[in-house]
């Protein structure tokens, strides 16, 4: 039995990152008593005053504001018949912790998927001949239309002060933007960031070759901005410490800079930090939750009663809490029954590094989102069906940070000794990258469940991830490689290195890709094959809502944050307008 029971609240929010903060302000503004529980520490903006974050070793190498594997590891295996092993050090991905979550130290690329991406199954059924795609592929449509979700993207763009070039305004393609973007109801709130040298070199070459580059849509704001909640952002000063760092200039949209400063002033909102939620407590009939139990910083078990439970921790932490709490039926890949854990997907990256001995890229002078990209190679916009795979990628030249630890040197440079040292002197600041960020489909055998052997420091089982590359994703990589190398050669670098997956590659958990893990508790139209309905409400326990990347049925080439913001805002709207009046399932199964 818990030692302590807190006062009742209307809404308890588990995890105070982007999704939790959006839910907090939306529901607090509706007059509800809201309490957020965050497993990590508080991260007030004064901790990140200039020049504290300007420390590559502390923040980017030692992961100062991330969750530790010690506390938050999961286990990984490639196939169902293998014994999974723990992620003892972070590699391919690194989740955040603490107030703001990963939203505190993300790069700030805020881009929407295309209308085809959100209806991928419909597209695949139309464009691909039956039997041409992997029989185990389990891609699905998102359970809403473009017109239904667009207003929420639009609002989140304004929350973040999205900076960039409009590509499609109410159906009219605009010069300088992404011609493949879905129609937007309003232009980008702010103009694009300044291009750096790598951006203009890449964009000029790509344009000459017939592609349609545009500036990376950025939540590092190009000009001063006051958002709809009244929070203010300052123009980005291109400090060069962005991806993996908290912003030292109040320029990167984060829960802190765009929401928390406002909601913290509301008397009906409160939050607890170092509060590690270990389960959602259900009523006897298991149809509703009565609250959550957490371990506080003194190690005491605390029960927090609540009428509504929002699970808004990181993607895999949400799935794990559902499994630990018995919310929904665990997925079984053999019988393909159960829903919690299914449709897990990651993503791949890769690219070329181009070295120019006579160029100064000044990589330290950059915003996190600085870059140019094109979307020509996205589903429906190129001839994927004749190539035998489905998917695509953002192809981009970004310059998220330019601090020197980990500097790439030309092939053949020794990894230590005089050669390495002189390589650093000769080549630091003289290279740029052309990269791919790919889609990743979902498959019957890729899923999440609880590990039978390994436990966290609180004695609870780790989440187990079963995942590997499939032929579809590897073929896509090989196709993208040809495009990237063609562009790279056109730019005539003095030296070049490349990094793409081979057709026999296994997923390498040691190489950072991106913390864009998705799926596991997906939104859908039926409780048979999805854990959540379109309002992110559990089909099984109707007062539990689970916003996050966990809701995506597969990964598109766009970064996930814009969509996490949009689906969370759509869910908050449904809670305010429908659920409060009539608590119960918002969609009839």
């Amino acid at each position, binding site marked *: 039995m818990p030692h302590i029971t807190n006062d009742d609240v209307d809404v308890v929010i588990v995890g105070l990152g982007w999704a939790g903060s959006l839910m907090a302000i939306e529901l607090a503004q509706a007059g509800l008593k809201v309490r957020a529980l965050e497993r990590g520490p508080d991260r007030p903006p004064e901790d990140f005053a200039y020049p504290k974050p300007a420390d*590559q070793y502390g923040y980017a190498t030692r992961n100062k504001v991330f969750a530790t594997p010690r506390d938050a590891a999961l286990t990984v295996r490639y196939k169902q018949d293998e014994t999974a092993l723990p992620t003892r*050090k972070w590699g391919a991905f690194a989740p955040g912790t603490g107030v703001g979550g990963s939203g505190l130290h993300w790069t700030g690329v805020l881009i929407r998927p295309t209308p085809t991406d959100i209806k991928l199954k419909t597209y695949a059924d139309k464009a691909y001949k039956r039997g041409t795609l992997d029989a185990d592929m389990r891609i699905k449509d998102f359970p809403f239309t473009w017109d239904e979700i667009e207003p929420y993207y639009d609002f989140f763009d304004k929350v973040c002060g999205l900076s960039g070039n409009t590509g499609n305004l109410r159906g009219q393609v605009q010069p300088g933007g992404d011609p493949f973007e879905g129609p937007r109801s309003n232009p980008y709130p702010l103009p694009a960031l300044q291009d750096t040298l790598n951006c203009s070199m890449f964009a000029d070459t790509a344009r000459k070759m017939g592609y349609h580059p545009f500036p990376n849509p950025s939540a590092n704001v190009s000009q001063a901005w006051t958002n709809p909640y009244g929070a203010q952002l300052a123009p980005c000063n*291109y*400090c060069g410490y962005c991806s993996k760092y908290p912003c030292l200039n109040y320029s990167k949209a984060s829960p802190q800079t765009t929401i928390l400063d406002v909601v913290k002033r509301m008397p009906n909102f409160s939050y607890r930090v170092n509060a590690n939620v270990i389960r959602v407590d259900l009523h006897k009939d298991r149809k509703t939750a009565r609250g959550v139990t957490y371990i506080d910083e003194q190690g005491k078990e605390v029960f927090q009663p609540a009428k509504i439970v929002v699970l808004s921790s990181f993607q895999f932490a949400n799935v794990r809490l559902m499994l630990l709490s018995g919310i929904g039926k665990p997925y079984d890949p053999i019988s393909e029954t159960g829903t919690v854990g299914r449709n897990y997907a990651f993503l791949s990256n890769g690219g070329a590094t181009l070295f120019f001995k006579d160029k100064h890229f*000044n990589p330290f002078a950059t915003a996190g989102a600085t870059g140019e990209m094109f979307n020509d190679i996205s589903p429906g916009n190129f001839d994927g069906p004749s190539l035998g795979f489905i998917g695509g990628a953002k192809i981009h030249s970004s310059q998220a940070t330019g601090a020197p630890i980990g500097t790439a040197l030309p092939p053949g440079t020794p990894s230590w000794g005089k050669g390495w040292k002189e390589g650093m002197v000769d080549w630091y600041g003289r290279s740029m990258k052309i990269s791919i960020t790919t889609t990743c489909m979902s498959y019957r055998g890729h899923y999440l469940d609880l590990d039978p052997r390994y436990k966290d420091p609180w004695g609870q089982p780790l989440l187990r991830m079963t995942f590997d590359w499939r032929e579809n994703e590897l073929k896509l990589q090989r196709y993208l490689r040809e495009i990237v190398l063609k562009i790279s050669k056109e730019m005539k670098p003095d030296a070049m290195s490349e990094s793409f997956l081979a057709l026999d590659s296994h997923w390498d958990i040691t190489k950072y890709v991106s913390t864009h893990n998705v799926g596991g508790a997906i939104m859908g139209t039926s409780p048979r094959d999805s854990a959540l309905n379109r309002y992110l409400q559990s089909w099984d326990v109707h007062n539990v809502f689970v916003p996050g990347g966990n809701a995506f049925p597969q990964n598109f080439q766009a970064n996930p944050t814009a969509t996490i913001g949009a689906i969370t805002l759509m869910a908050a709207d449904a809670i305010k307008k429908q659920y409060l009046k009539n608590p119960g399932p918002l969609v009839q199964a």
Partner: protein
Amino acid sequence: MSTPPFSRRNFLKATAVAVPVAAIPLHELRAKGLEDVHLQHYQPVFFSAPEWQFILAACDRLIPAEGKGPGALETNVPVFIDQQLKGGLGNDIYLQGPHNITAPKTLGFQLPYAPQNVYRRGIALVQQAANARHAKPFQQLSAQEQDALLTALQKDTVDFAALGETSLKASQFFSQLLGDTKNGYLADPMYGGNKDMKAWVAIGFPGARAQYIEWVDQHNVPYPLGPVSVSGKRA
């Protein structure tokens, strides 16, 4: 900027025979910060005296003094490694067993050792290998012999298992040591390495300036200002 002349060979010779005379207590280092430490006067807080001799000698080959740019000793890289190991490097690792050390490399780090153990065991094993091959400890080998032994570690042609080690491979120790050496060379000086920001000066990195709003659109123009550190020093 100018720096006092630093005689690497004399220093290595002197420290090879004796523990540094003018040891600075740790609390004093913390009070003053690690940026003003002199390597010759530094008393290690993690490494034993014999281990310290190895670290000094190995760092001196991994980033040597010869050629363009400062070496690891001139930039206090050993101080950085020693302080990191004492200061909790690796305390974020998930270390619960069971450990499967034969797992594919792509499944990542599976050793039962925190970095502190990797160094303790690794140094002892390298010294065994050096003694077996040359009848001398690593720090007394010629630069060529040291480079050859480090290369053998990197390529796993030194067999730690044959020396009785059950988990750690030579290449794993080497990559921990090399990674920490490079980190110490390029990190902010507050951590004890990159003394006087000499590595940043050599490569042209402005450090913690972190403000380039008037510079970002000046394409292909070398940045004119030297680095500053988080503590506000300039070089």
